[in-house]
């Protein structure tokens, strides 16, 4: 069996007082301590931002948008989290009800990106087309509302358009955090 290659021991470890090989590097360590001080400033800021909802699930993440004609009043989370549930609530105004029914068109990012799981109440009918879904709800009188249970399937910035046919359109921008 061939012998293993060897090399002589060199004095490569920095010594203290020229007698003990410790290998400390105080200059590097001082830089590291400065860096950690910065980190301990940044980390609490991130935590506070999180509590405020900058990364979702907080007061800054909640949003509300209405159409000028009053057909739709939407409460949603403008900052969502990937694969985490949230609720998008829609309050319908008088302009949305026609012949005891409410029709609501929502574009396909509702399903493709924002991962719609459930609609409460269940729509009486739904029809696909025009890059979206047209939901029809039975509605007898105001107030009328529906809720969409979302669970985003990918991170990113998404636009969710919706309107009641013949009424003003809403365009929601939703940021989904990884």
């Amino acid at each position, binding site marked *: 069996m061939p012998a293993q290659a060897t090399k002589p021991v060199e004095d490569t470890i920095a010594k*203290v*007082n020229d007698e*003990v090989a*410790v*290998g*400390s*590097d*105080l200059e*590097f*360590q001082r830089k*590291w*301590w400065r860096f*950690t001080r910065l*980190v*301990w400033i940044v980390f609490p800021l991130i935590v506070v931002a999180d509590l405020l909802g900058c990364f979702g699930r907080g007061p800054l993440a909640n949003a509300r948008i209405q159409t000028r004609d009053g057909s739709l009043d939407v409460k949603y989370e403008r900052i969502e989290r990937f*694969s985490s549930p949230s609720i998008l609530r829609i309050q319908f105004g008088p302009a949305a009800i026609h012949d005891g029914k409410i029709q609501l068109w929502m574009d396909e990012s509702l399903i493709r990106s924002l991962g719609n799981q459930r609609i409460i109440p269940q729509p009486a009918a739904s029809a696909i087309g025009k890059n979206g879904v047209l939901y029809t709800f039975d509605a007898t009188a105001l107030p009328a509302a529906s809720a969409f249970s979302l669970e985003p399937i990918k991170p990113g910035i998404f636009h969710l358009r919706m309107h009641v046919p013949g009424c003003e359109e809403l365009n929601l921008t939703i940021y989904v955090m990884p």
Partner: protein
Amino acid sequence: MAAVLRALFGYCFLIFMVRIAGRRPGKQITPFEFVLIFFIGGVTLTPMVGDDRSLSNALCIIMTIGITHSLIAWLKQRFPAFGRVVDGTPLLLLAKGEWQVETMRRMRLQDDDVMALARDQGLQTLEEIDYAVLERNGEISIIKAS
């Protein structure tokens, strides 16, 4: 794909966090460190795995962590500066009867911590210590006065 990237990020972030959290002296982990390790580990696990509970996902994540671990070990060997960032360097705490005040303060250590390790080696007073070094793994090495 995403699970592998999440595992890669999670591993590197955990190394960073443990490095930032600092070294604590002692040969055994205290309950304080147990909480840190298990809690961070548990919290990291769920987003790494996601909703994919398949064996193939688990195997890919384990292999990713294994490859990353080996890669970091290789980088540490190849680039000593990288090794210093990942592991830190040994730090002198006491030399020839002089406490290294800045290091002790920054590493949040007290003379009690050094004396505890000295007693472990049969020393009775601090005067019997020539050098005390905080090693990269958090242990304190004591070199007796001759």
